[in-house]
């Protein structure tokens, strides 16, 4: 049984059809990439999954729950973690505080008890432990107490990934985790994604423009173009699909031909 199943999804903003009859199933524990030219509807699809957008029609099923009618926080509680294309962190807080926020769904004690007991609360110790594990995992020790606003962009994206990991997600939705990064940072993130896959076994849905990363780390690739799913399969199959080459890689080839 697939981990996440999307069936016949439609989404439109007024006259613009963002997603047209998209079906997609993500198997448990794999890295599933979604690619496509700008405006293909990739981010819209992620937004549907974690409840930011409500689709016009269709069904999204995650571990037997129908997500289409749930609120984002309910979906998050089910174990759907996510990072954003543009960093969405609390800039005036430290890395540690941002990561602890990722645990917020797991806090059981209420406002009063949390406020009175503070750091003596054993629950808080457990959460800190989890956060420290994530810091260790993503090698962020040196930034533990740094303010997010003072960190380089590449590191901020890593912190965001960390916050998503702190949620203990069953599935991670990553929206362009390597955008705006240099070669070295991209390599680091790709390695971390593989580590998450191998060590924790989280299913990962990945939107990515860097074809090198997609071909290297993903097990399955879905290609969107103007809201339509045009191809799906293992990376090497998709890479050679004439439809994909025309829609996506074609632009580049044409450009190359012209310059040549």
């Amino acid at each position, binding site marked *: 049984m697939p981990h996440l199943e999307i069936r016949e999804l439609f989404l439109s903003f007024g006259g613009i059809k963002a997603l047209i009859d998209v079906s997609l199933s993500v198997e448990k524990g794999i890295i599933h990439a979604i690619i496509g030219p700008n405006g293909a509807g990739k981010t819209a699809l992620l937004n549907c999954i974690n409840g930011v957008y409500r689709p016009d029609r269709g069904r999204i099923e995650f571990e037997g729950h129908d997500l289409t009618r749930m609120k984002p926080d309910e979906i998050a509680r089910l174990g759907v973690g996510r990072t954003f294309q543009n960093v969405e962190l609390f800039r005036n807080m430290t890395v540690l505080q941002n990561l602890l926020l990722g645990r917020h769904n797991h806090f059981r004690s209420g406002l009063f008890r949390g406020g009175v007991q503070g750091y003596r609360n054993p629950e808080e110790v457990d959460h*800190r*432990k989890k956060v*420290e*594990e994530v*810091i*260790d*995992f993503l*090698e962020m*020790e*040196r930034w*533990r107490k740094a303010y997010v606003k003072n960190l380089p962009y590449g590191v901020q994206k890593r912190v965001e990934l960390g916050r998503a990991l702190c949620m203990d997600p069953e599935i991670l939705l990553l929206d362009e985790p390597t955008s705006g990064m240099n070669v070295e940072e991209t390599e680091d993130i790709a*390695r971390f994604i*593989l*580590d998450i896959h*191998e*060590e924790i076994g989280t299913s990962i849905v990945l939107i990515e423009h860097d074809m090198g990363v997609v071909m290297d780390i993903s097990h399955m690739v879905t290609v969107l173009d103007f809201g339509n799913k045009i191809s799906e399969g293992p990376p090497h199959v998709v890479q050679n699909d004439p439809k994909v080459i025309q829609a996506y890689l074609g632009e580049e080839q044409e450009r190359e031909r012209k310059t040549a």
Partner: protein
Amino acid sequence: MNRNTIPHLFLKRVEGFGDRVALREKDFGIWQEISWDEYAQHVRGFCLGLIELGLERGDHVSILSENVPEWLYADLAVQAAGGISVGVYPTNPAPEVRYIVGHSESVFCVCQDQEQVDKVLDVKHDLPLLKKIIVMDMKGLRNYRDPMILPFEEVEGIGAEVHQKDPDRFQALVDHVRPEDVALMVYTSGTTGPPKGAMLSHRNIINMIESLSKAMPFYNTDELISYLPLCHIAERLLSVLLPMYIGYTVNFAESVETVTEAMREIYPTVFFGVPRIWEKMLSMVVIKMKDASWLKKKIYQRMMPVGERFSEYNLSGGHPPLFLRFQYWIAWLTLFRALQMELGLSRARLAISGAAPIGPEVLKYFHSMGVEVLEVYGLTEETGVACMNLPGNQRLGSVGPPIPGMEIRIAEDGEILMKCSHIFEGYFKDPEATARIKKDGWLYSGDVGEIDEAGSLKITDRKKEIIITAGGKNIAPSEIENRLKFSPYINEAIVLGEGRKYLAALIQIEYENVAKWAQERGIAYTTFKSLAQNKEVYELIHKEVEKANKEFAQVETVKKFKLLEKELDHDDEELTATLKVRRKAINKKFGHLIDALYSGK
């Protein structure tokens, strides 16, 4: 069985100190303590595990890792088994790893993580003797199907089983180690040619730590942070060998980047830094001061000269007048105490600089703030330390008197010769090079220097690096280079002039500080290169060079300089693993720049 070998010494310490803290490692944000007993358990487990996997007496084992407790376990385990441990710099690129692992004929490689394993796997086909790659952190390696890869804990597990069946096995192994056996090999960084493997015996090392502990006051309550590469003999002595002799505690930061933070948590009482570290600390203070509030700036400007005057009295052996002492007390309250805390040096009883010459200005600066940085001098080939300045009796510009048991003679051509009980056994598989450096009982250091009236040694420079200008003048470039590097805007300086009419320099800017300087002035730049090409940056450095020139004789001044447009890097073979400049590589790579310096373009 009271034999003088490293494993015997270690077991004796474990016997006496059992549950006291031997090591501390910051893990998941908390300092975890490891007692001497636990330390010994790891060593025993790993040792027996290695034997079970086929390690034999006299075999070599390479260790590729940053500083972690497992480094020490592996090191001592190999020695206890009668093997020879070889440290490899974790920053070494794959070709150098191949050279060292291959040349040392290592049968095992102990690697820290995926990064190091990948390097070894890359060159595996050239290493027919290699049996297993043992990995401390298996993260990212679960799907590697290579049968050579084995987790560190698994080896310890195998060893623990052996120990259960045969509890006397470990002691028997240790008793087989003889003082004359080679214990470890240190590959010298090799500013010229490929690295050479210096063999050090158990006896060498025991003699060294005995004289060292006589020369310097170490206590078993001391705290040290281990952060410089352990394959270097100085860090090895301080982090592995001296602790087992003295009994002090060694601390490991989470990573190289968090050392400053760890300093502020541990406040080490013994701190060893290479000149680069001290220079970096100094420029950090200077730069941070520029950003400080008006009041802090004023205090800094007022109090620094007080410290300077006070330290001048102390350095020349005189007593500062009462009023100055009072002023210094104020300065300590308002500035120096905070500075020391900020740098994590407030408890540093022994602050040591070594491994390369340091500029006296840097030492003076730290001395003014009440941190006495002692310069030491030594060679890997005589097990690390030859001379050292002693606390309370420091002579700036000299490396101090020889340590007990060390005899020093200056040859006719100025070369420093040494005689002691810890001269190394020789270079591995290179009797010719050994014969060149070890002649009729003396070790030829390759450095030029002189001994002053107080018996302190003053190093002029490396023999090979002395510049003879076209005018026939002998000039020691390192002195000028160190003065240039004192500037917070200069990271590296290479003075040239062999056979030329005047001296010139290639200068690498300190990227962070210059970038900050540029931002404050609204100078646009994108990368290191564009910053180095900027005219105003050139002017800034020009002023710094002029400032430095004032302190030298006319022939020793730098007449022209060029800024390097890339940062020198170990990977590009411009620096050694210890970040020393490889002049040959630089001369070749930047030949066009050097020619331009002298052709008047």
